[in-house]
């Protein structure tokens, strides 16, 4: 009797705990579902209502009901492309130098510092850009006398994405089997030739992963960008010109606007979500393709 009760208690407890764990497991899916429903349920009908021609137009004026976000899409893409370019260039070379061309003690120290860079809140990056980079660009290289713009934002963002690029591509390099390295040296290649022509191609997929991750970070960054890009909703024609990104558009008005204008911001969010989705899909395709490729390459040998 007593044993029976204990047994039932244990069974009940198992059931309850299973439910708790299941809830935890589906919670993130639930959250994602909610966000998607929220975005699309209010965003898509609005795009339909004002017409895609208006929504993908170039004019943004809340007073006249013009909600064109094309200029912001273009600005977002410019900023993302340029910052990824800067970030990849610097980050990849940093990773390479940390991989084989640095004394080991320095490597640990520098990695620590780079990771610290990742921990700085984005608003601090924005402030730094606003107070140092924007006036510097304005007073030195800007032909129009404007420091705000795509270049300032790209500088700030490229520093922000450095940690991602460095650590992901350094891990990828480290994951390449050591015998590739030794084999290449044994065949008479120099250290430099080995790293650039053997190790780097072997770590290709990791480097791509770094690129995609940093694109994701760059396109979604808001606070750092808002402070240094100027926020004028016009089509970018120069690197030194006040423009507005999709994220900045949402953040600028979210607290203050209501009605149609607020819905327009949600539709902007839909656009941003679509970009992120495309990015994630291309990332998984890339990774999946890589794995399949490896399997295929491994088959004839076995």
């Amino acid at each position: 009797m007593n044993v029976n009760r204990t047994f039932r208690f244990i069974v009940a407890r198992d059931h309850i705990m299973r439910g708790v764990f299941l809830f935890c497991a589906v919670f993130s899916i639930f959250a994602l579902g909610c966000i998607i429903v929220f975005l699309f349920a209010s965003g898509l009908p609005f795009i339909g209502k004002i017409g895609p021609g208006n929504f993908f137009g170039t004019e943004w004026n809340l007073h006249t009901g013009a909600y064109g976000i094309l200029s912001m899409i273009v600005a977002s893409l410019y900023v993302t492309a340029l910052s990824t370019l800067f970030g990849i260039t610097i980050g990849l070379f940093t990773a390479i130098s940390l991989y084989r061309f640095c004394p080991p003690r320095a490597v640990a120290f520098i990695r620590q510092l780079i990771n610290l860079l990742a921990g700085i809140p984005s608003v601090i990056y924005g402030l730094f850009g606003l107070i140092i980079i924007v006036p510097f660009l304005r007073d030195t290289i800007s032909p129009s006398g404007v420091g705000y713009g795509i270049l300032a934002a790209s500088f700030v963002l490229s520093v922000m994405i450095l940690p991602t690029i460095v650590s992901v591509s350094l891990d990828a390099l480290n994951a390449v089997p050591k015998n590739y390295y030794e084999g290449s040296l044994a065949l008479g290649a120099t250290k430099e030739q080995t790293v650039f022509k053997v190790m780097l191609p072997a770590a290709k997929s990791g480097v791509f992963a770094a690129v995609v991750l940093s694109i994701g970070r760059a396109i979604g960054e808001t606070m750092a960008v808002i402070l240094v890009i100027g926020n004028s909703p016009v089509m970018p024609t120069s690197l030194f010109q006040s423009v507005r990104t999709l994220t900045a558009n949402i953040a600028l008005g979210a607290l203050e606007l209501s009605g149609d204008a607020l819905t327009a911001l949600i539709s902007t969010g839909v656009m941003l979500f679509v970009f992120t989705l495309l990015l994630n899909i291309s990332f998984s395709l890339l990774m999946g393709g890589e794995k399949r490729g490896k399997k295929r390459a491994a088959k004839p040998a076995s």
Partner: protein
Amino acid sequence: MKRHVLIASLLVLLALAFTACTETKDFDTTKNISIVAREDGSGTKTAFMELIGLKDKADPANVIIQNGTAGVLSEVRGNPTAVAYESLGYVTSDVKTLKVEGVEATAANIKSGSYKISRPLSVVYLESVLDTEANKAFYTYLQSSDAQKIIADEGYVSVTDNAPAYAANSALTGAVEISGSTSLQPLMIKLASAFEKLQANVKVTVSGGGSGTGYKNANEGVSTFGMISEEFNLSKAPECTHYVVCKDGIAVIVNEKNPLDNISMDQLKNIYDVEAGANSITKWDGIIK
């Protein structure tokens, strides 16, 4: 050897930093005007654009948008070619306030109406919030002579004459939440802390966000009072009513290095008008001859 390189590069960096800091240039009138504006939803922006005759128009193409009063001020402070509009009560002495049509932006000129660019600063609220004692007390305080004195001392224009003194009620407790326009915010903070001295057990919290936030928070009951810095627009807060706290000028400000002293309404309009076409003023030599 390596250490030398390191030291040398550090020195170069330092030198760069110093030249960047100490560089002083004369004002270059051939440079483009850096037009500074506020975000959509800002009361200062709505009021300013309306007052210079550009109601509901978009910003000019290369405008730099700052989302807050402090951001505008810091931009003008740091950027020699900037021009901006800003709540007069918020302007500090390290930027230059222009005369408009030869009239200085002072409280007296705003009250007399000779300074053209001014607007009311108001609070919006749901009628029902006044049912709460503490809220009602703060509302009464805003209309008192105590408040009018602070308003005048801070450089704003009092619109309530012969106001009665505020009678404190020591038994009163409660909390008042205020949010909205960053133009009214600094004055409201002063008023709130003076009120808290009279009513030690009532806590008044003032936060910013912009006029749009003020309308929204008051209408949804998030805040007791929402602050706005434009003519009350019922469609933005349909449930609410409003009270004009004071009048405030909108100052036209430029960097201290700028030699300009006076600007006409037409010139202002041609700077901020996106559709000015051939009349558009984009460089300082369009005004400074």
